[in-house]
Every structure is written in structure tokens, then in C-alpha cells.
């Protein structure tokens, strides 16, 4: 088992298993012991990969995940120790990288529009008609998403696709939490307006279901 080591001791002494350290502690240790960074990678590679897979084309996902962790390793010395969980920070780096891949993001959104309940289009039953409507809504949603201001889209998708809270989004994007609230509200309002012409929402003003989005 890998352990944190106390270098000042006369002999290398086992202090605490690396796996028990917080991300902040691991990143601090990674300054002198790169192996500690591997634990951070293992903890967060899956959510970072899923987030990027939702945002960009499959062909560039792996490169961006690799770039995210490489950039995180390079910047590990600048990590703010008051945040024990590095996931928002990593997702913030990933979001910044996505900004350089707008074409790929647009292609990914187009793919969302293409991939739908295809088999339902030709159907004549009520279910098929419903699916055709759903596809139409989906296409409009994707189109509306691409029309959002970049900052608003990042905040909204970090909340929905990365399941970050408002505070965590603020940490990821390095903006005040109030700005996060206003960006997400603006994005939701615009999406609703753009979608209103396609299909009426049932209870549009229902609160967001997952609890991580609740900000104190």
C-alpha cells in the first residue's frame, strides 16, 4: 500500500495511507511525490470523462481528459487548499479546455439532435407521435443550448451534467456564487423561451430535483 512519508524523519516512516488523504492533501504532497497525484486521477477520472463525453465529440474526449489531468498536474502547486474536494477544480479545467474546442462541442450537440428515437418517426401510433414530438423538443433544446452565451452554458451544464452545486460551480469557474445563480437563471429562462414554441412544459418552475444544486 502506498503511504504518505515523512521526509524529515530519520527513517522513512509510514504515516497515513494515501487513499485516506483529501484531494487537497494529495495535491500538496504531489509537489514532491508525483505518485500522490495518481490517487486524485483514480478518484476523478470517471466523472471528468463523463462530463467531457457529454460536451464534445467522442474523438476528442480522451485527449481532453488527458489534457485536463496533465494541466491539473502542472498546476497542482496552485491548488487552493481550503477546498478538500478537487472535482470542481478539475471540471473547471475541463470546461476551460472545452472552450478551445467549440467546433467539437457544436458537433457533439448536433449529434444529440441526430441520435433520437429514430424508430418512432415512421410509426403511426400515439406513442410514435409522442416520440416524434420528443425528438422535435430535443432538436430545439440542442439548438437553444448552442445559442446560449458561453459562460451561461458552462454554468448550466456543470450543474446538470457534472452535478455540481452552485458553490462548486463558483469554485470551478472562479466566479462569485451570485454570478453562478444569475448565469443559470438566465440560461434556464432562455431555454424555456426558445422551447415554448415547440412543446409546452408541464411544471416549468419546479425546483431542480437533485440536491447538490441547492446552494446555501
Amino acid at each position: 500500500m502506498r503511504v504518505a512519508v515523512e521526509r524529515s524523519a530519520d527513517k522513512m516512516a509510514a504515516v497515513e495511507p494515501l487513499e485516506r488523504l483529501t484531494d487537497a492533501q494529495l495535491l500538496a504532497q504531489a509537489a514532491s511525490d508525483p505518485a500522490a497525484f495518481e490517487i486524485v486521477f483514480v478518484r476523478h477520472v470517471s466523472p471528468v470523462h463523463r462530463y467531457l463525453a457529454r460536451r464534445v465529440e467522442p474523438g476528442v474526449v480522451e485527449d481532453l481528459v488527458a489534457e485536463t489531468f496533465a494541466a491539473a498536474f502542472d498546476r497542482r502547486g496552485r491548488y487552493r487548499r481550503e477546498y478538500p474536494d478537487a472535482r470542481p477544480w478539475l471540471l473547471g479545467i475541463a470546461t476551460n479546455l472545452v472552450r478551445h474546442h467549440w467546433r467539437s462541442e457544436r458537433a457533439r450537440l448536433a449529434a444529440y439532435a441526430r441520435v433520437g428515437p429514430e424508430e418512432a418517426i415512421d410509426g403511426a401510433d400515439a406513442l410514435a407521435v409522442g416520440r416524434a414530438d420528443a425528438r422535435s423538443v430535443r432538436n430545439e433544446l440542442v439548438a437553444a443550448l448552442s445559442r446560449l452565451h458561453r459562460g451561461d452554458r458552462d454554468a448550466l451544464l456543470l450543474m446538470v451534467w457534472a452535478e455540481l452545486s452552485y458553490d462548486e460551480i463558483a469554485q470551478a469557474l472562479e466566479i462569485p456564487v451570485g454570478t453562478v445563480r444569475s448565469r443559470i437563471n438566465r440560461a434556464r429562462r432562455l431555454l424555456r423561451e426558445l422551447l415554448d414554441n415547440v412543446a409546452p412544459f408541464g411544471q416549468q418552475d419546479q425546483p431542480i430535483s437533485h440536491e447538490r444544486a441547492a446552494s446555501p
Partner: protein
Amino acid sequence: MNEIELLTSLGDEVQAPDQQTVDRLRGRLLAHIDQAAVAEESRRRAVRWPTAAPRAAFAVALDLWLSAVARTRALGRRWGRWMHSRSHSAMVVFAALVITGSAASAVVSLNSSRSQPLTGKVPGAIEPASVAGYHYTITVTPNLDAGGAFWNTFIAYTRNHRTGSGSNVGGGGGSPYPTPTNPLFGGNLDQFESGRVGAQGLLGDTVGYTLTGPAVAAVRFGSRTIRTFSSPELPTGDRAAVFFIPQGAPALTLDWRPGQPIRSVVHIPVMPEKTAGLMQVSMLAVLPLDDHGNPIATHATIPPTPFAYYWHAPGAITPGTALPPHPASHPRPGVCQLAQHGLRALRPEWGTVITQVLPAKNAVGELFFSCVSTEYYLHGWPLTAGVLVDARQPGQVLGAIPGARPVTGRPGTVDFDAGNLTARRSGQAWLVVRGGSGVAQRLRVLDALRISKLSVHSR
């Protein structure tokens, strides 16, 4: 459905990455970490540009400008304008000199030639008693024998992927590792092979090379000056010069000291099966040059060597070549120990332990020190295992092994195929296995070994 639920349903179509993807990404990350370590070390060891030369160039440019202003006043307006613009041109030239480097560095740049790479082809057509037309590959690997801190260098000549010849050199000429006053080490110079010295006795060109410390910008021998280069295939911070030596050229030596002649003649006894007597050999000193093209003054240094305890298993199949009288049958306790678990066919044959680590404090460039080594035998293959620690500060985390690449799916494990070794990070050390039938066997042996004791620390 509201917009959030719609977006969530879109996102749910994406699956989590599979294990192969994660392994690939982990490999890429480890490669990046290793590269970052190399880059960091290079930055740390980069030779600072002397500030005196740019300052001097700036002062000259300032003088030119001031004198031009004075002459403008004296010569009149029209003539002065021309002079003024001319001084500006001169300033631009001097500014360019300041930006691109000093005139001193131009000495090394203009009068020198670029080194050959670590892998290449010897010019000329293939013919008997010649390596012309062969591909050559130079590899640098850490010494695994306990108690020694130096780099093994090896040059292999191949033709159609078959090894033609090669020479395995531990340390070569110069010093075992670079120090500020003894910066040439390793390489295939200073070799006295059977009846042959350097390129003598060979038809056509051959390859000469030497490794150097970070401060060596070029090496000079006779009228040739070869610029050194750094590479991820070399120890971090160290450099190399590779060059072709024509047939019949003098033998090159790295052991030149200030006050000694550059050219000399030595008499070397030839092998008994050859003509009895002494062979007269012309020698030419290889001089290390700094950024300014000046020879670096060298003097011999003797590195500290800890006493090593040799042991030898009774009935070992592959006994060591230099058996001391009455060796122990088991390793005695040392600062580092290896333990074996599983893989019963793996038999320890002989090895070396040391009871203290003497840091090589004057070493420059990355340097590894082996604190325990054991020769194993597995299904007819000999394999050497060793534990490497930092030779300068033994408690520090070791840097990357030159030329080694991450092994996919095995975090912290690297392989260097050309160097015939595979290694796994273990705390601040590398556990290295060399030899065997290939990487698969070395990985099996690595899995069966662990470092049971590592009692080294920084002072």
C-alpha cells in the same frame, strides 16, 4: 419535462469510461508526469546565460549612439542625419546580438558541427571488418550492481534488425558520473579492445560518443568541435556528443588534464594471441568546452564507494564471474533488502548488499545508486534485480529512468526495451529488473519481488 430534465436525459446517454480507457489515460498521465520531471530538472540545471556579455554589448551600443549624437552636432544637419541612421543600424545589429546571444556563444555555434543522434546509420557501404552501413543505437541505463553509482552505456550495431556487434561499457572514460570539474563520462572512447583501439583496425567510419554533464556545450578533439545535446533518452540534465570517426583516426581519450599534451603516443600491450609486444597508438584528447568555447579545467576526482558484501547461493546455476574467497551463502542485512513472494521457479543465485549509502554530493545531472542487487534465474534466463535510489540525496524521490516508457495498465511501471529493463516505482525508489526473455517475464519477476527494507534518507 422541464429543461433541466430534458438536459439530464440527454446526458444520461453517455456511459462511464471502461477500464481500458482509464488505463490508457493513466498511462498518458504517467508519461506526462515523467516528462514534466525531466523538463523541471532541465530547467533547474539549465546553464545561466552570463549577463556580462549582453551588458557589454549594450554598453557598446550606447557608446555608438552617444558618439553619433556628438558627430551629428559637429558635422551638420544633413550628414548628421545619415550618421544618425547608421548608428541606429548598428544599434539594431548589437541588439540582435544581445537577443540571440553573446559573441562568445557564436564561437561554439559557428565553428562547431551538430552531433549525430543517439540512433542513426554509419555512412558508407557494408563491407567486411567495418560497421559502415550499419544502424547504430546508443542506450544509457543505470547500473544495478549494489554499491556503484554510474551509468552503463551501450552501442549496438545492427543490420536488418540483427545485431552485428556492440560494446557494453560501464562508465567508459572520464569519470563514473559528471562533476563540475570532471564533466565527461561514459561513452565508447578510451576503449582498448583486443588488438584494437578506437577506430584503428576497422575499415570505414565508426561511431564515437561521450556523455557529458550539463555545463558542456561542445567537445573538441583536433580540429573538430561537436555540439552536445540533451535528450529524454539521457539522464536528466546530462548531454551527449555523437560523431563519426574515420578509419585510422587517432584514438580519443577523455582523461586529459590541464598541462598535459593534447596529442600523445602510448604503447599498449597486444593480446597474447596477436603479435607479441607493444602496439604504438596515437592518442588525441577530447576537451569539454563551455558556452564560450573555452575548455573546462578538469581534475580527477575519486567517488566514494561503500564496501559491498557479496553472497553466493550454494549450487547457483549462474555464478558470478568474480567470486571472492568464501562468500556468504545468504545476503547479510543491508540498508536495502529484496523479498520474494510467489513464483517458486525464480531462484536467487548471488548478489550484493551494502550497509551504508555514501551520497555522491558533487555529482551533477541525474544519478542513481543501487543499494541492493540480486541475480535471479528463471526458466533458463538470468535476471538482475536492483533497488535504485537518488545517489545525491538518497531520500529524495527518484526521477524518470532515461528512455523508459509507461507500461499500459500498470501504474508506476515503466519498460525500456532497448535497455532490456523493466522497473516499478516503490516509494522514493525504483525496483528494476534487467534481462530475462522479455518484458512479459520481467513483469512476472517484478510482481514476485518487493522492497522489504529501504533505510535510506536525505541528509
